Structures are given as C-alpha cells and as structure tokens.
C-alpha cells in the first residue's frame, strides 16, 4: 500500500487530479450551504454577467444562478457517473469473468453478445435507449451502463484467461475449491488493477456521455446537470458566453482530472509498464 501511494504520488498530474476531484466533490457536498436556494430558483434578473450584483458566475436566460447550477449539478453529475460506472463494472466484470473462466461455448456466446454491442456506435445507442425509455435519471444511468460495459468485459475476460492457467489457480482447483470461490477469491482480486484503472476512465466518459445527452435535451428534465445548463444556453452563446463556458470548464476540469488519475493509477499499479515508459 505504501509502495502504491509512493508510486502514485510520483505522478504529479495524478495528484493534481485527485485534488480537483476532491474539490468538486466538496463543492457537491457543500452545495446546500453555499447556495441555500434551489438551483431552479429564479434569484436575479436574467442575463446578469458574472461578478455583478452578488452573482459570482452570472445568471441564465431565466435569472437562475449559474454558480448554484454548477454546484448542484456537480452532485447529480458525479452521482450519475458513479452509479452508472458501478453498474457497468458489476455487469462487465461478471460477464467477462464467466466468459474467461469457462471458455469454450460459453465464451463464444458471450463474445458474440459483446460484439453485438461493440458494433453499434455507443453514443447513438445511448440516444436511442433514452429516447425510447423516456428520459429520467434511471434511464440515463441505464443507457450509459449499457453502452460502457463491453470494453470492460473484454478486459476482464482476457485477464481471466491468462490467470486461470497459473499455478495458484490450479492449486486452488486441486484443493477442491468451488468455481465460484475460485473466481471470487483467487482470480478476481488479482485482476482488479486494470479494472480500477479503466473504471476511473469510465467515470470520465460517463460524465461526457451524460452531458452530451443533456445537451441534446435527452437528460432528465428535472435534473440540473452540467450538460443541461450548456444545452439550455447554447442558443444564446453569442450573447451570453458565461452560461455555457462555466459549466463547460467544470466538465473539462473534472474529466481531465479523472483521466490524469487513471493514468497515475495505471503507472502505480503496473510498475513494470511505467518504468518502461519513463526510460
């Protein structure tokens, strides 16, 4: 653990990423205290530029506080991204594990199923799913999860295929451990590091997907997410830059930090690879 922390801290970008993410999470948690009113509340005149009349980041076309929107939006956006990533990790890992462990027919069937999803452009699939299922928090999470699990399943499958022939697994088999126990206690813990790395990147892409959906007006109409704020103000981009720029910066910083964290994790968890890269 100490080694891991040490390796992670060597990566300056990763540390910066963690700091930004902690700040965003703090903003999300403290939204209630900083902005006691609802983000949908009309608190000021419409079209107030930033730094005027106690609106730090200006107001939108109806007079809603952009700052409040970003703070509450952080909450929803992070929550959405985390939940949808958790769902797709759960699904992707189970599918990949079964496929990689059992091999043969099961593997063939599962790979076919995965390829079915990988051949459809993921963003269009998400748009279609949300449009059919009527937009709400649950359907958006579902759509993001559905389009993001296949690469993870492939990754886990490959890990399982290589690990299942290693001595410690064979020893466990000879010891008479059940398949489920082998999968859960022997192979899975040893294949987790790439899952963690790609999980952090999946959170980032989930945020992007959610923002794109909301931007197109396919997000939950009752949820003030970052993508929604940009989507609602894009028609006035030429007159009121602040409405789109600040939530855009929020998305940029968060996604960038998550990517940096992912990279740092990768370096820390795969020291061999990292060393190769630096030399």
């Amino acid at each position, binding site marked *: 653990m100490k080694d891991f922390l040490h390796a992670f801290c060597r990566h300056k970008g990763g540390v910066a990423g963690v700091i930004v993410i902690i700040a965003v999470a703090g903003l999300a948690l403290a939204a209630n205290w900083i902005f006691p009113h*609802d983000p*949908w*509340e*009309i608190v000021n005149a*419409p079209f107030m530029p930033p730094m005027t009349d106690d609106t730090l980041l200006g107001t939108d*076309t*109806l*007079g809603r506080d952009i700052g409040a929107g970003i703070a509450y939006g952080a909450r929803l956006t992070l929550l959405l991204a985390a939940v949808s990533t958790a769902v797709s990790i759960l699904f992707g890992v189970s599918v990949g594990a079964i496929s990689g462990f059992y091999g043969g027919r099961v593997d063939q069937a599962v790979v076919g199923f995965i390829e079915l999803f990988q051949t459809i452009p993921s963003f269009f699939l998400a748009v279609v799913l949300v*449009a059919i299922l*009527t*937009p709400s928090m649950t359907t958006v999470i579902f759509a993001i999860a559905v389009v993001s699990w296949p690469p993870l399943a492939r990754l886990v499958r490959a890990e399982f295929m290589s690990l299942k022939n290693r001595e410690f697994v064979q020893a466990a088999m000879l010891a008479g451990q059940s398949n489920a126990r082998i999968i859960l206690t022997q192979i899975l813990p040893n294949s987790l590091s790439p899952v963690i790395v790609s999980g952090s990147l999946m959170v980032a892409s989930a945020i992007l997907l959610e923002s794109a959906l909301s931007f197109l*007006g*396919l997000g939950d*109409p*009752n949820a003030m997410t970052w993508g929604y704020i940009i989507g*609602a103000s*894009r*028609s*006035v*981009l*030429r*007159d009121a830059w602040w409405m789109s720029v600040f939530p855009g910066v929020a998305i940029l910083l968060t996604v960038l930090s998550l990517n940096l964290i992912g990279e740092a994790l990768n370096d820390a968890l795969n020291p061999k690879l990292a060393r190769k890269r630096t030399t």
Partner: protein
Amino acid sequence: MKRILSRVAALTLSLGALSVGGVALAEAPTPQYGGVLSAILNPEPPNLNVALQQVAVTQLVAGKVYESLLTYSFDLKPQPSLAKSWEVSPDQLTYTFHLQPNVSWHDGKPFSADDVVFTYTKVLANTPRTRTLMANVESVTAPDPQTVVFRLKQPYSAFLHAFDIGGGAILPKHLYDVDTPITQNPHNNAPVGTGPFKFKHWERGSYIELVKNPAYWKEGRPYLDGITYRVIPDAASRRLALEQGAVQQAWLQDIEPIDQQRLAKLPHIGETKKGYEYWSTMLWIELNGGREPFSDKRFRQALMYGLNRDFIAEKIMYGTGTVATGPIHHNTRFYDANVKRYPYDPKKAIALLDEMGLKPDKDGVRARVGLIPSPYGEMSRRTAEYIKQNLGKIGVQVTIENADVGGWTTRMGNWDFDMAYNGVFQYGDPAIGVSRTYVSSNIKKGLPFTNTSQYSNPKVDELFNAAAQAPTEEERQKLYTEVQQILVEDVPLLWIADTNYSVFHNKRLHNVVTTGLGVVDTQSDAWLSKE
C-alpha cells in the same frame, strides 16, 4: 408642415433614384420580376398534402402549390382566391361560389367545379379539420364547370370562414380519384395544384424547390421565379442564415424569441407582426379534468392564480406573446376582454388549496403532478421549468416529463397526462377553432387536439351551438361573450398567452405578407429587388 417636408424628402429621393438611372419611386417601388426566394423551413414537413396534414410547415409549402376557394384579409373578411365571387341565399342555407376562369392544373389539365365537388365530398369530408364544417353540409354540387353550390342542413354562421388553404385546399380529381388510398397517393409528396408555384424537387433533410407556374391564372403573377425552402434544424444557424442573407424569410418560431429583438435592429431585416390573424395561436397548459385534483374547479383556479404569466410573456416569450385573458385570442372574431381576471396572487392560490383541504405534507407539498412540455423549441421547455418553479411556491410539485412529437400527441389524445403544454390554431372564428376544445361532443379519447381536458358543461355546449347558428353578428357576440365569461370562471385549462408572432424578412423581399394568412398564402405578389 411635416407632410410637406416628407413630400419634399420623397421628391428628392425619387429624383435621386431617377438621376442614378433607375425607375424606382421612393414610396411604392414597382415590383420587379425574377429572383428566387429562399425561405426557412423548420421542422421538415411529414408530407405536402395539406388536405391530410395541417401542420404549419406543410401549409407553408403547400399554400404555394395548392389553392383554396377563399383567402382572408387582415380583419378576417373572406377574399377571392379560386372563387371569384360568391352569394349567400337569404335563408343562409345555400352558398354559391363562382370560380375563376381559365384555371389549369400544373400538369396542363383544366380545372373545373368537378374538382371542388370531388375534394369536398370525397376527401375533406373525412379530414379531422373539415369534418365539422361538412357535418353541416347537405350536398355539394356543380351545376356548371364554373359554379359550385353548397346546400346546408342548418345555418352555420362561420361557414365562409372555413375556406382557407388548411381546411379547403382543392385537389386534382384526375389524380386523386383512384383506387390507391389517399394516404399512399404518390402526389402527396409531389403535389400538383393550381397555385402560382409548381413543385419541382424535394431533397429530404435539405430543401424543397418550387418554380414559377407560367400559366398561373392571375395575370402577370407571380413575380418570383421560384421559392426554395431550406430545412435548417438548428436555431443559431437559422438566425445566421437570415442575418447573412442566405435566406430571406422566417416565421413562427424559426427565430428564438430571445434573438428576435436583436435581429429586428439590423438595417437589412424587416419585421411585421401581420399575417397571423387567421391562425391566432393560443398557448395554454392543458389540464386533465378527468383526474384528481384537476376535476375540482378551485384547484384549477388556484393554478391560474399561482402562475406568474406576465413573467412568461415578458421574460420567456420576449413579447412574442401577451398574457391571455380567456379562451379566445384577441385577434380572433368575437373576443371579449370583459371577463374575470387572474393576476399573479400566490396567497389567493394557497387559500383556495386550503379550502379544498389540500394540506401541505412534511415536505410542504400539497399535490404532485406531471407536466409535458411541447416538443417544439426551447421556449416551451423554459416555460415548463418556470411553471415548475412557480407552482412549487404554492405547494404543487411539478415533475417535467419530456416527450417527442409522437409521445406528446398520443399521451394528450389518450388522456395519459396531468398537465401538458399545447398551442392550437383558432382559424379566425370561434365556431371553427375555439369550440372544439370545450364542447362535450368533442370529448374523443384517442384523438389529440380535441376536448382532451374532458371539460363538460351543458350550458357551454348550448351557447357554442347557438352561436354557431345565430344569424347576426350581434347575436353571436352576445353568446360568445357569455361563453367566455363562463369558461374563464371555470378554468378548464390554463391560458398562458395569445401569441404575437412576427415574420422576419430581408428588406429586398417585398409584399411578404398580404393577407391574414401571412406567408402561408400564395405569395404571388411577393417580389425581390435586385441586390
């Protein structure tokens, strides 16, 4: 003095124009032939048979290709179109239309009264829009090729107001009197009409091209060589296209309300509020009267008091609407402003909810309802968000349920909603465009744009029926005034705004709007000056 000055100015100007070598007069420039008008088309219409499909964009394009018997002036008086003149019998039961001579279809076949009889008896009698009119008609006959006679079962005073392009486009009998069902007729997407412009090409997702009809019956018309309708789905691109002169005409919600004031200030862009008199769209929030708590009049009144409609008209619609007073648009005939008013008064709204026994729960919520915004444009979304905020203050928690065009109309038609944003054309006369929303005979599950709020009041039914048959304008006014007062007291739905749309056009384009049907009319008088 002022007048003299302006005369002098005009004279100098015209002299100036003359000396440059032109023939233009300063005040009323002479129309010039030639030029192709590019106009915005948004969204793309589903098809171009206006007898089957009355969405605004279909009417816009088809209004150049097809024609109806009449058109309407700005004060909604009937004007000649395919009918040159008409007579009404003293008992108001026989209407005789005399058709224009020398009219031919775009494929060269002659137009005659048979086409009119065929269209009315075989096609329009079955369309949702004209069925109500035809229910009053006993027979349509053609005593000679230039004359059509409508015999009515009972007097119907709005009769002459239902012959616009949307309700009465005349189709060619020789192309539509066939075995193929009308919905599958290939000419629905390549229309053949009698109008000043002929259909040439439709590139799906891109443009519809119309060209001049040289054999048009009106002498010396049209001035334009053609009209190209460009499909531009993005609001910012539409504004830019108009600003830069790539297109010369925009209407309805083509330009987002927020951009309108800015656009109107540009030196080369003209704006007119005329040309919507016949449609006079009203925006309202439909309420499902078949559900609790909407079935209680006090709840509906509370919603009305709890809505700050002035904010919606000023800050969301930016003056493209004025706060509605009741069921009839102020530009429609028989409007009466003398009705109960609902100013923004949350205290009164809360008092009404208390009286009903709707007490706030631990979250301060008295009622939970859903609201479906209309799928057209950002404005309806912003309005829905504002309503959610507004009604939250009186303890009514609103959940917004987005839907696409299909979902929106189906859910309204099947009464599967609590509240829904809607806007409906009024077609000049309350008997055509207003009564359908409130009379109990029009409560038809499955059909959108009927009485979907399921409001039923025998007194209102009686007044609307009597008004449709009353012989004089004065009597009709009395009846409509009474019906407006009852409806405003009962609040079957929440009237938000009377729309006040604009047509934006490049100043090179002249005579854009000449009738109460605006840019939907044939535009055979429109012309472009040279750059």
